[in-house]
C-alpha cells in the first residue's frame, strides 16, 4: 500500500517536474541559450555571403526567424479563434488576443529590420514588392483586430467577432509566406526551395538554431502574456465577488 502511494507520489513529482520544464522561465532560458548560440554561429561560424548582399546578409539570421515567429503567432490566433467558435470558452479568446498581440510585435520587428536590410542591400528603405506589401497588409489587418475589440463592449460578442476576424485575417499569412514564389519578380530572393536550401551548411545551421530560439521565445512570451490575461480575469472575478459580498 505504502509502496503504491510512494509510486503515485513519485509519478506526480515527475509530472510536475516535466511541467516546470515547459513553464515560461524555463522556456526563456532555452530561448536565450538558442538565440545566443545562433548569433555566435552567424558571426563566427557562417561565412560572409558571396553575393552582392555581402556582410548585410548577417541580418537574415534573426530577421527570418522573427518573420517565422510572427506567422506562427498569427497561426496561434487562428487556431484559438476556431477553438473559441467551437467551444465559446473565453480562455481561447484570451489566447487569440495574445497570439495577435505577439504576431503584431514580431511583424513590426520584421518590418523594421527589413527596412534596415533593404537600405543596406538594395539602397532603399521601402519597395512596393510582393513580400513587403503583403506583410504590411498583414500588419494593418491585425491592427484592425484591436480596433474591432475596442468597439464591442459585450464580452461574448467581442470574443466571437475577434475569433471570426482572426480566422479570416489568417488568409493573408500563406499569401505573405508564398508571395516571393507566386510573384518572383520582387526584390526578395527565394532562398529556400524544395530540395535546395540555397545556402551553405554552416549558414543553414545558424539560421535553424536562431529559428529554434525565436520559436521558443515566442512560446515563452505566449505563456507569460496568457498568464497575464488569466490573472486579469481572476482579478475581475474576485472584485465582482467582493462587491457582491459587500452588498
Amino acid at each position, binding site marked *: 500500500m505504502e509502496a503504491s502511494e510512494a509510486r503515485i507520489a513519485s509519478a506526480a513529482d515527475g509530472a510536475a517536474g516535466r511541467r516546470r520544464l515547459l513553464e515560461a522561465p524555463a522556456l*526563456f532560458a532555452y530561448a536565450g541559450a538558442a538565440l545566443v548560440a545562433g548569433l555566435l554561429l552567424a558571426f563566427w561560424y557562417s561565412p560572409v555571403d558571396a553575393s552582392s548582399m555581402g556582410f548585410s546578409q548577417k541580418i537574415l539570421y534573426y530577421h527570418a526567424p522573427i518573420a517565422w515567429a510572427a506567422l506562427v503567432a498569427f497561426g496561434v490566433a487562428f487556431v484559438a479563434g476556431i477553438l473559441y467558435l467551437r467551444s465559446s470558452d473565453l480562455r481561447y479568446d484570451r489566447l487569440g488576443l495574445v497570439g495577435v498581440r505577439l504576431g503584431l510585435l514580431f511583424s513590426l520587428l520584421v518590418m523594421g529590420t527589413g527596412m534596415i536590410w533593404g537600405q543596406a542591400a538594395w539602397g532603399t528603405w521601402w519597395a512596393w514588392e510582393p513580400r513587403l506589401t503583403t506583410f504590411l497588409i498583414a500588419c494593418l489587418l491585425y491592427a484592425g483586430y484591436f480596433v474591432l475589440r475596442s468597439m464591442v463592449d459585450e464580452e461574448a460578442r467581442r470574443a466571437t467577432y475577434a475569433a471570426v476576424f482572426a480566422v479570416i485575417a489568417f488568409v493573408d499569412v500563406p499569401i505573405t509566406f508564398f508571395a516571393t514564389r507566386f510573384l518572383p519578380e520582387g526584390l526578395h530572393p527565394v532562398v529556400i526551395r524544395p530540395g535546395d536550401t540555397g545556402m551553405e551548411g554552416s549558414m543553414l545551421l545558424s539560421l535553424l538554431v536562431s529559428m529554434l530560439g525565436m520559436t521558443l521565445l515566442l512560446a515563452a512570451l505566449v505563456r507569460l502574456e496568457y498568464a497575464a490575461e488569466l490573472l486579469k480575469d481572476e*482579478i475581475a472575478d474576485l472584485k465582482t*465577488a467582493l462587491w457582491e459580498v459587500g452588498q
Partner: protein
Amino acid sequence: MTIEQAAQYVAAAYAVILIVLIVYFAVTARRVSGLRRDVELLRREAEKREARGEGA
C-alpha cells in the same frame, strides 16, 4: 558598400531587435508580477470577509 558600412546596418538591426524584445519582456514580466500581487491581495481580502461572514 564596404564591410564597415554594412556592419553599421547589421548592428542597427540587431540592436533594434534586442532592445525591443528585452523591453517588451521586462514590461510584461513586471505587469504579470503586479497582477499576481493584486490577485493575492484580493484573495486574502475575500478570505477575510468570508471568515467574518461565517463568524457572524
